[in-house]
């Protein structure tokens, strides 16, 4: 194959790296030549994709039916017509609209707060020597290791003590806090890759450390900030457990909580299709975010899980 000449060289580390890189660029553009066993792989992958897609399509289809149609027709029979009014009903009558706005408010605020606070905290840890850098980093990373089961009861009591129970502000602060460990971890990693001379030349030019951070370091963190922002947003948008524990008033619930409530009601009640419209309304934004930013998400995820 194409790299057979390279493999004959003695396996010096540098040469191997170069070979891998060259090889990878070949692989990235070209498709493998077809072989018979690929048929089995395609079959396998198609089955897999089918199981994944059919669940989505079922929900989408159900969200366009009437309640009566939903109960009486076969689950895979197509809805007779695009009944978008289901979405309007769900938005207003089943208060999906309120949940949606709460979700937007909570996840946007928590994400911005979590990323901003993490960026400020990561800077001294990564770039200023103050004796206990690693200790401080360890304290933050503890959050990645301690299971939520140990802390959720005292957390509930603490949030109660500071008077933020059943409030969106409390939820925002808690979400931001629980985003911090991964954010700080990823951003410290990014900042350590920047050259030392940046700060030195900025200092020579008379910029103070705060100014250096805001004007020089921060703009260079683009990809890192993008990764942590997207991951935090997805986490906060989807978060269920802390919401369940900390929020009790229906008017303050986020989408996952609201849907859980609707789901409980649907056990006994009748309004199935509102639930399915709600599921669509919750899922489509994150699927869109994912579709456009797949690379950032998988990169942040690999960094967090393997090295963390």
């Amino acid at each position, binding site marked *: 194959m194409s790299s057979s000449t390279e493999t004959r060289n003695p396996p010096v580390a540098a040469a191997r790296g170069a070979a891998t890189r060259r090889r990878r660029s070949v692989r990235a553009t070209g498709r493998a030549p077809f072989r018979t066993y690929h048929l089995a792989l395609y079959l396998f*992958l198609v089955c897999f994709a089918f199981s994944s897609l059919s669940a989505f399509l079922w929900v989408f289809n159900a969200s366009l039916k009437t309640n009566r149609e939903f109960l009486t027709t076969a689950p895979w029979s197509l809805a007779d017509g695009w009944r978008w009014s289901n979405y309007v009903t769900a938005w207003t009558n089943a208060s999906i609209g309120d949940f949606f706005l709460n979700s937007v408010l909570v996840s946007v605020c928590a994400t911005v707060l979590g990323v901003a606070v993490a960026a400020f905290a990561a800077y001294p840890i990564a770039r200023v020597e103050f004796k206990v850098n690693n200790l401080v980093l360890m304290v933050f990373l503890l959050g990645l290791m301690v299971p939520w089961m140990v802390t959720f009861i005292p957390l509930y009591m603490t949030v109660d003590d500071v008077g933020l129970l059943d409030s969106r502000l409390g939820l925002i602060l808690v979400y931001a806090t629980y985003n911090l460990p991964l954010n700080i971890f990823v951003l410290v990693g990014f900042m350590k890759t920047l050259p030392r001379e940046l700060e030195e030349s900025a200092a020579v030019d008379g910029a103070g450390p705060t100014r250096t951070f805001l004007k020089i370091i921060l703009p260079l963190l683009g990809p890192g900030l993008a990764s942590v922002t997207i991951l935090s947003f997805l986490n906060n948008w989807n978060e269920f457990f802390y919401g369940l524990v900390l929020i009790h008033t229906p008017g303050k619930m986020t989408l996952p909580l609201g849907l859980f409530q609707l789901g409980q009601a649907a056990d006994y009640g009748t309004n199935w299709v509102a639930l399915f419209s709600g599921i669509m309304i919750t899922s489509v934004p994150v699927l869109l975010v994912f579709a456009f930013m797949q690379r950032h998400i998988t990169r942040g995820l690999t960094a967090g899980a393997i090295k963390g």
Partner: protein
Amino acid sequence: MFRRSQRRIVIPFLLPALILTGLFFLYPLVRAGIISFEHFSRTGRTSFTGGEQYRKLVDDPSYTRALKNTFLLTFIGACMLFPPAVAVAWALHQKLYGESFFRFVVFAPAVLSTAVVALMWKFIYHPTIGLIDPALRSAGLGALARTWLGDPTTALPAIAFTVVWQGIGIWVVLLSAGFERLPVEVLEAGRVDGAGEWALFRRIMLPMLRDLMRILLVLWVVQSMQSFAFVQIMTRGGPFGSTDVVSTLMYRTAFDQADFGYAAAMGVTLLFVMLALTVIVNKVLKRDVIQY
């Protein structure tokens, strides 16, 4: 001078993060240890009980059942998760056509809220309006249809399947990264020596991925022993406690019975069980670093 002026920013830059972490993470963490030794009466009074809560746990049949179900969920889930995840990652490594489409579809459920996925599958499993049973019946396989979540024998596997259905994309991505990092020379050498793709996979790739698999298995144990949302939404621990895991039992103990101390003791105990299990997994699968 530059260094000193830099050092001035350390405290103010770290302060917001330290305040948040201290208040909502470190303080609760310390408090968890204290609470687990306290008894909460229904009126909200607390009294120190020493190890009483922990002693009670050992004889509590609902706790041992929950612990057993937690292990079972972890084990069944691992069996359902790893073989297909490795297969998909390997298939995607073959650079087939439509690779990015498959990657998208496999990963897509992972970005959905667990609440959404759990609700979705709760209805997919529904015996009359769901997707599975009507499909089986119309295919003439009505004998296989059952109330998946209402039957104590199938409820836990059904939940495990849903957990895997949502999460598998993440494991595929992590495994794919492992496949990409395999040294090309070794694989090429294998091909030159006439090894087929299956032999390559079995004799070269899998042994080289062993360390990654160990890490992923530990991650899975840690994650699945804490699963809460799926169980709470799909069955609430029912039918007859057959799906009750430690987290749902804890949640009920804390918020339905207001017994914070007992619930905290359950959490602390599970933490140690989990630590022990990860140490065992690591010990069993650990071996000398392979040279290549």
